[in-house]
């Protein structure tokens, strides 16, 4: 309940300040436009289409998901949060906020992407949906703990993509493979190994995040 109250506070704050939403919306529009202009009338291969889809998701995450902790640190309100909540409450509340943001952001990307790119045809939609959900959960988990780490550092802007790249690489590559499987029409049985990797990634990141957060949060 306490985490949900923090989540409610963050949603309400976000709707008033538009700290992350504007950055994410602009990034999605600009990135999609640049890719469309650079491709022109060329036909791109299926694997490239799947790759570009996850590239957009990765970089959009870089532009907005760190705000969840960085905004508290920049405004000086993280101390206030330390005074009213336990570290696990703070982490759960922020994680919930990032989960909603990731799902909203990536759903918009997926809809726009399928509308704008002809080659993005999903032959096994159920597989895509499962991998999309698992990938988004992993993305939200990892980006929340990375945001907490970099919010305490000086060069926040540069540190986020640098730290995210090695941590998110296994997730992005496996999710990309699953998207390609979904585009090929591969069955769940064949994609089982990749699905297990993403599930394991999500579980490991979540466990490590809760174990680490106490040390990161308290100076």
């Amino acid at each position: 309940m306490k985490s949900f109250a923090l989540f409610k506070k963050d949603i309400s704050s976000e709707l008033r300040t538009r700290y992350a939403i504007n950055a994410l919306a602009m990034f999605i529009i600009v990135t999609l436009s640049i890719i469309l202009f650079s491709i022109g009338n060329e036909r791109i291969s299926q694997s490239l289409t799947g790759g570009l889809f996850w590239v957009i998701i990765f970089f959009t995450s870089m532009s907005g998901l760190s705000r969840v902790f960085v905004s508290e640190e920049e405004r000086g309100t993280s101390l206030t949060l330390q005074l009213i909540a336990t570290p696990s409450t703070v982490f759960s509340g922020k994680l919930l906020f990032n989960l909603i943001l990731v799902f909203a952001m990536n759903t918009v990307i997926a809809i726009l992407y399928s509308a704008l790119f002809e080659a993005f045809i999903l032959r096994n939609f159920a597989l895509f949906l499962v991998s999309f959900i698992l990938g988004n959960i992993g993305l939200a988990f990892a980006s929340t703990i990375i945001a907490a780490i970099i919010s305490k550092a000086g060069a926040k802007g540069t540190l986020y993509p640098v730290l995210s790249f090695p941590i998110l690489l296994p997730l992005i590559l496996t999710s990309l493979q699953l998207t390609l499987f979904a585009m090929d029409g591969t069955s769940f049985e064949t994609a089982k190994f990749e699905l297990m990797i993403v599930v394991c990634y999500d579980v490991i990141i979540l466990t490590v995040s809760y174990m680490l957060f106490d040390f990161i949060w308290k100076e």
Partner: protein
Amino acid sequence: MSEYSLTAELVNKTYGRRLIFSGINFKLNFSTIFGISGPNGSGKSTLVKIIANLISPSSGKLVHNLDGTEIKSEQLHNHIGLVSPYLVLYDEFTAYENLNYFSEIRGIPFNKRKIDNLLNKFLLFNRKDDLVKTYSSGMKQRLKFIFGLMHSPQLLILDEPTSNLDDEGKEVVYELVKEEGTKNIVVIASNEKTDLSLCNEIIDLNNYK
């Protein structure tokens, strides 16, 4: 009445190689007003943060007891009220919204009567529905007092409590300190002689280098 006590045992703090203070020992029981004095940079705010469990000492320890039982670190925030210049409330919310969210996040019911009383006491009731960003620094300081008191803490920590306050605001604070000092522990970190004159016991951080 619950009996709260705070014990500091050989508390040291260093930042890198720089020693802030060392060997701080004290035991505070309820109904105490404790002062921390010292020039700028002597570590008053650092000691306040250690007492408030916001940062850890480099060595030594602080023990918070309630009715003879040590309070767990993760429960401490519900027993402590802090007012300080480096505490920031959410500018995009009104005073009422801020206090409401703080209650919810703490997991305590929003006591409207108590909050309204505090808003009245600190002369903010008529501005309770205004965004905090429209407040003057003195009004923000008064709102911080309400934030520090709304959950009825047994340990009230005041770092530079009268900064930004006008004479009327200072009077309210002095009355509050006297009142809280009869039933709880109040810690005041300040250089103001008037603030420190309220204390039963004072430590000067210059003596702990």
